[in-house]
């Protein structure tokens, strides 16, 4: 594997994370509990789709097969997507949407601060931009978690259920495989191993304040790095890719 090939996969993974989570949040447009929250969630969605566009454009450039970001986003089959399983999980009730955001944004805040040190100038610049956006995503999720955790009996119960339901998808966030270890040795990728205790501390502190319990350790789901997904991704792709599949190269 060359550095360029590894960087292509790395860009694709990050791009897919942003694309799929961004699409998930976009599903809430006009369906959030109230209008201000509708704007908040779709703002976050747009941050993510913007990030996906930048990363998939860079991936296409690294791949060198004259593809566009759109072709990467809309023309791949399910097994060629490398987004973390947690990003494709359904929105569920508002508690599930917020806890998914909490787990991911806490991770991304730590991750992009590491990636900012990358020797790859594009990754470093993208990370610097992402840090600003993710800082806000994290504040948004954190405040809701505290508000609803330390809220009514019903809101507390729902938050705890969401925390427990999504916990099994958090182990995967910190997995390092050959691609990432190779790029780490080249000074390009972020080292995820030291991020795990920091992440656990961040989540633990917030759940303390929210009077919620950190879920008990359980079997952690994995597979996205090999293109193995939960049933949810297929449903997203069938909706997201419909137009490109039915009318290839459609323009407007």
């Amino acid at each position, binding site marked *: 594997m060359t550095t360029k090939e590894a960087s292509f996969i790395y860009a694709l993974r990050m791009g897919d994370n942003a694309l799929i989570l961004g699409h998930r949040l976009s599903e809430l447009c006009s369906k959030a509990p109230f209008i*201000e*929250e509708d704007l*908040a969630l779709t*703002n976050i969605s747009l941050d993510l789709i913007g990030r996906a566009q930048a990363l998939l454009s860079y991936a296409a450039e690294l791949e060198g097969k004259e593809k566009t970001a759109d072709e990467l986003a809309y023309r791949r089959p399910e097994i060629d997507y490398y987004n973390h399983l947690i990003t494709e999980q359904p929105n569920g009730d508002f508690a599930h949407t917020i806890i998914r955001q909490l787990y991911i944004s806490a991770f991304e805040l730590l991750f992009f601060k590491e990636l900012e040190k990358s020797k790859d100038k594009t990754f470093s610049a993208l990370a610097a931009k992402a840090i600003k956006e993710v800082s806000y995503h994290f504040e*948004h999720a954190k405040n809701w978690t505290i508000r609803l955790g330390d809220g009514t009996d019903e809101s507390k119960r729902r938050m705890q259920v969401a925390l427990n339901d999504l916990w099994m998808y958090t182990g995967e966030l910190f997995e390092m495989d050959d691609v990432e270890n190779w790029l780490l040795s080249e000074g390009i990728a972020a080292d995820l191993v030291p991020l795990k205790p920091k992440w656990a501390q961040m989540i633990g502190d917030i759940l303390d304040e929210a009077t919620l319990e950190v879920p008990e350790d359980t079997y952690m789901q994995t597979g996205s790095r090999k293109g193995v997904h939960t049933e949810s991704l297929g449903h997203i792709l069938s909706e997201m890719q419909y137009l490109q599949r039915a009318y290839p190269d459609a323009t407007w």
Partner: protein
Amino acid sequence: MNSDTQFDLWEVFIQSKSGQPYVHAGSIHATDMKMAMQNARDSYTRRGEGTSIWVVPSKYIVASNPDDNEMLFDPSADKIYRHPTFYIMPEGAKNI
């Protein structure tokens, strides 16, 4: 009975850049200060409108009563000397 199921109302003021006055942008609903600030940011600064935000609970805004308009505002109508343009500047005064 209160039939309003919305959260408390807040007024949003945006400063477009440093040194400029804060201008009323609109209102939002929120349960607390943090939510008010975030909702104001998400609702009114998405297109680069501002560099600073104030949010104030609407209940703390004291508004004049339209019935008092004659009393409050009509007496100033004939006092043109309160406008700087009423005065003729002496020749030689600079930088005014």
